[in-house]
């Protein structure tokens, strides 16, 4: 009888404490992971979209800022952040800056640049990336694969010599490992990684925004660097004009706006064409 009573009390107290714990509700789960039913895009689709936006951004920066800026006397250097060097980021470092800023956001997107003949040895492809890069060089087609060890969906896209500054700087650089680059060559590849096989519209927009915010951040870092130049005459006028018009640089907003104008049509087409949006 006594044991029965003890068991009863024990059961009752367990039931009450479970009820109390349960009635509190849990800690809200991180909403960055969407429910499977919300998934609207395959990861390769979104990475292709963002790689195209990256091509546009890089071409604009290389031609419109670096190429035209050099003619106006602006300097670009790999050690652009050093105190004694008054210069802007080279295109590869501009991309590195975007990549770093994306990593600071909550979007789990990875972006890297590599080559088989890089200026900086740490950017040389190895292993599977090196094998796939050989394919990219011959076909110029993207390679999509699942990186087993990291559990990440990975896409690699050709990085072409789209402008004269790419070819000239790489051929003439003191640490170059190849001196016969020419326009149109596959100089390297960008590697993009994302942890899930599909994305919701919200997640896809998050990826685009993370990339654009990254562009804005590195461009603003360049403008801050210019603000710190010791001699005023070496500072270009920052506003709505581009270096092709004189000793000017566009503001970050003007630069991003141009990227948007060039990229948004395609991006919007993909977003509107998704299953979930189309069925609404």
């Amino acid at each position, binding site marked *: 009888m006594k044991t029965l009573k003890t068991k009863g009390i024990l059961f009752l107290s367990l039931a009450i404490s479970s009820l*109390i*714990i*349960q009635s*509190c*509700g*849990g*800690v*809200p*789960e*991180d909403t960055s*992971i969407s429910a499977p039913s919300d998934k609207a895009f395959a990861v390769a689709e979104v990475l292709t979209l963002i790689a195209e936006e990256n091509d546009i951004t890089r071409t604009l920066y290389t031609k419109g800022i670096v190429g035209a800026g050099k003619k106006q006397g602006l300097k670009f250097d790999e050690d652009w*952040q050093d*105190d004694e060097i008054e210069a802007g980021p080279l295109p590869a470092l501009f991309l590195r*800056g975007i*990549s*770093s800023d994306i*990593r*600071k956001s909550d979007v789990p997107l*990875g972006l*890297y640049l*590599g080559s088989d003949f890089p200026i900086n*040895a*740490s950017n*040389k*492809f*190895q*292993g*599977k*990336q090196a094998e796939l890069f050989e394919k990219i060089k011959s076909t110029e087609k993207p390679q999509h694969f699942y*990186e087993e*060890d*990291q559990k990440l969906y*990975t896409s690699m896209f050709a990085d072409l010599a789209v402008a004269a500054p790419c070819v000239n700087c790489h051929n003439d650089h*003191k*640490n170059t490992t190849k001196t016969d680059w020419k326009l149109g060559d596959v100089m390297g590849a960008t*590697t993009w*990684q994302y942890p899930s096989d599909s994305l919701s519209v919200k997640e896809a927009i998050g990826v685009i925004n993370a990339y654009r915010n990254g562009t804005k951040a590195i461009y603003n*870092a360049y403008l801050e660097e210019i603000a710190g130049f010791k001699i005023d005459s070496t500072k270009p006028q920052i506003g709505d004009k581009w270096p092709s018009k004189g000793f000017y640089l566009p503001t970050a907003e003007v630069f991003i706006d141009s990227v948007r104008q060039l990229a948004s049509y395609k991006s919007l087409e993909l977003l509107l064409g998704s299953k979930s949006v189309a069925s609404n």
Partner: protein
Amino acid sequence: MFNKNPLRKRQYIGSLIGIAIGILIYVLLPLKQNEDFLSLGPLNTGHEGLSCNACHTDAKGNLLQQLQSNISYTFGLRKTKADFGTENVDNKKCLECHDRPNDRHPTHRFLEPKFKDAIANINATECETCHKEHNGTRIVLKEATFCVNCHYDLEVKNDPIDTPHATLIANEQWSTCLQCHDFHGNHIYSVAEKMKDTIPLKQIQEYLKGGKDPFSSKKKHLPLSEEEWLKMKQKYSKTK
């Protein structure tokens, strides 16, 4: 009650003493002046004087909610665990104060697939691999020869130093790297061009153990102090 069995009285007093000690521990231990008793070990170089909750910030939700979430997780009713008591101290937490635009070796750089062999040897994607806290030191590695994991095939064109990098690499002198190169690249200093002018290995070793900084007293970016971090956090939570 005590007349039935005198042992009951002892049980009763014992329980009361136990409860009182429990309450005292619960109230006294979290006080700021008692943080040393809770700490797993002395804080690392530069972190002396930080409060526990500068890193161990409160986890989301109250204790019951955290308990409920983790029970749900155990039975597969939710996808992610919830932090219990305090938040997990990860890279993000370190970078709230130590993030710098010019970090030569940011942790995220090593997430790239090509570094997978290197990070199997030394997991450079996590700050705590080198800077594990509560060890009263600057880095916890016994030897600072980690550069070999990525730079084993380094070739330097127009090598500026009198003993060429090729010779140093051939002789596997990986402990010499730090005699010229500051890993995170935050010091303002000029690099020696002769081996005899480089920072002596002993000074580097002492620095890694928490000793005097042999590179330079000048740094490009300073980390946030606890006060600055708190201000930043408050400003951020207000704008949210």
